[in-house]
């Protein structure tokens, strides 16, 4: 197949141009945050929060306010609920996380089934970047700007928080504030990721690029750049591939991300399986 044609043909459709740009932006933002998620060990938390935002998204849809607001309330709310149950009962944390996020998620599914059509349900669950509306695009841009600016300003403090929160505390940094900043950004980016890959696969966007980059770098700044590059690449290429094979966009993006991780896992120059096997 003609390679130029393969890339150029989809761009004749306005919806594809939009889809590719939005995918790239979402890939960029989620990848940036994914570095903090993987280093802080928040993969399970990311999974929980990204699912728990569902009822918030549905309620926001009904009230005709931005999804991000509903997601924010339920995302942060779910973590507060997890903390409350953990401290007041003898149930272990991973169990609490599992039961809270599935409970919220189930509530969201009930709300969708009673309130909106099944088409909307599948869009929220599996993403609908090929049919994204202009208002959703604006919302994604706003979320992206907030997230990237916050990460840029608080980068050093957040890295310190992930690495050594005791030291952060000992020099008078407010770690409770940083915890809620990271949590809020997680809820917001879950909404952004929901546009492209859907709520079920959002956690991949928030974990995989960071994990891939973690294998390829020993410097935080390099790690962020590598994660962003891999996130944008898989988002854009995944959107293209889904167009050509007429398959699920979210699925294609996440499969590509996972393949990049596998390649890094095997061939990474320092932490890859091949090098490790050679050295041992």
């Amino acid at each position, binding site marked *: 197949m003609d390679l130029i044609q393969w890339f150029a043909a989809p761009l004749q459709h306005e919806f594809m141009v939009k889809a590719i740009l939005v995918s790239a932006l979402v890939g960029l933002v989620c990848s940036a945050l994914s570095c903090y998620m993987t280093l802080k060990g928040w993969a399970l938390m990311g999974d929980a929060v990204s699912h728990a935002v569902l009822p918030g998204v549905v309620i926001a849809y009904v009230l005709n306010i931005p999804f991000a607001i509903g997601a924010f309330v339920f995302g942060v709310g779910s973590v507060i609920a997890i903390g409350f149950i953990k401290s007041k009962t003898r149930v272990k944390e991973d169990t609490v996380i599992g039961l809270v996020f599935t409970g919220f998620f189930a509530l969201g599914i009930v709300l969708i089934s009673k309130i909106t059509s099944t088409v909307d349900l599948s869009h929220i669950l599996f993403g609908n970047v090929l049919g994204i509306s202009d208002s959703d695009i604006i919302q994604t841009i706003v979320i992206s700007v907030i997230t990237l600016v916050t990460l840029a300003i608080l980068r050093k403090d957040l890295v310190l928080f992930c690495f050594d929160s005791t030291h952060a505390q000992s020099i*008078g940094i407010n770690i409770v504030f940083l915890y809620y900043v990271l949590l809020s950004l997680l809820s917001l980016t879950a909404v952004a990721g929901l546009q492209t890959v859907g709520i079920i696969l959002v956690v991949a966007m928030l974990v995989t690029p960071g994990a891939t980059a973690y294998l390829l770098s020993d*410097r935080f700044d390099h790690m962020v750049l590598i994660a962003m590059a891999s996130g944008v690449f898989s988002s854009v290429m995944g959107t293209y591939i889904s167009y050509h094979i007429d398959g699920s966009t979210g699925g294609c993006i996440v499969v590509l991300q996972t393949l990049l991780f596998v390649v890094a896992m095997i061939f990474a120059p320092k932490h890859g399986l091949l090098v490790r096997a050679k050295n041992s």
Partner: protein
Amino acid sequence: MEQISIDIENVTVAYHGKVALHSASLQLKAGTICGLVGMNGAGKSTLFKAVMGFVKPASGRVLINGLPIRQVQKQNLVAYVPQSEEVDWNFPVSVHDVVMMGRYGYMNLLRIPRSPDKRAVRDSLERVEMWQMHDRQIGELSGGQKKRTFFARALAQQSTVLLLDEPFAGVDIKTEKMMINLLMELRQAGYTVLISTHDLASVTTFCDQVVLINRTILAYGKTSEVFTEENLSRTFGGSVGDFGFAKSRSTQRSQEEQEWT
């Protein structure tokens, strides 16, 4: 007039209703090194955490240079080096990055280092003989080098009160000696050091004062007066013999070396 640097008054700490530290009182003058000695679980780490304000005491108060801990932290007056087993050694940071974290309290919100910060980092790394390693990822270091890196971070903070929780655990003799020498230099410069250690014999070589702790402060004062066999047996429940009271690791080692040459 000698200034009181660390002032702990009647501090009681309980976790989930269980008392970990009962009614601890302690006053340390500026320019002293004070050893904190007790068994595992005797409340040493709890005392540090109470001083740093990480746990809220059920009663009592802590002042450093006459100020409450929040103000102390904001003014970079105290540096705390916890036990390091919880550090993620695979974290993508270099030795230099870690020591620079000691300077964040002096920087603006964006934490952009200026020349005094860079100088302090280089200085601190040179003092612990780690400057040539400054570009290494922290997981590539030996046990002693890891400890020296975190010690350098405390030096870079340029705080006149140092709290060190088991800094000699798992380090080589060379590192232990170097750190003791640095602590004695800091004492000369008027620093106050509170240090917990298992190495009982080395305590007598560099600590001016000793605090014996077992869920409460059993005794404290001049090392020569407090460090008696009777007090120690109270601290360790009558099993001093197991703790190598006789010789410090460093003197033992040098004798062994002599025997071999």
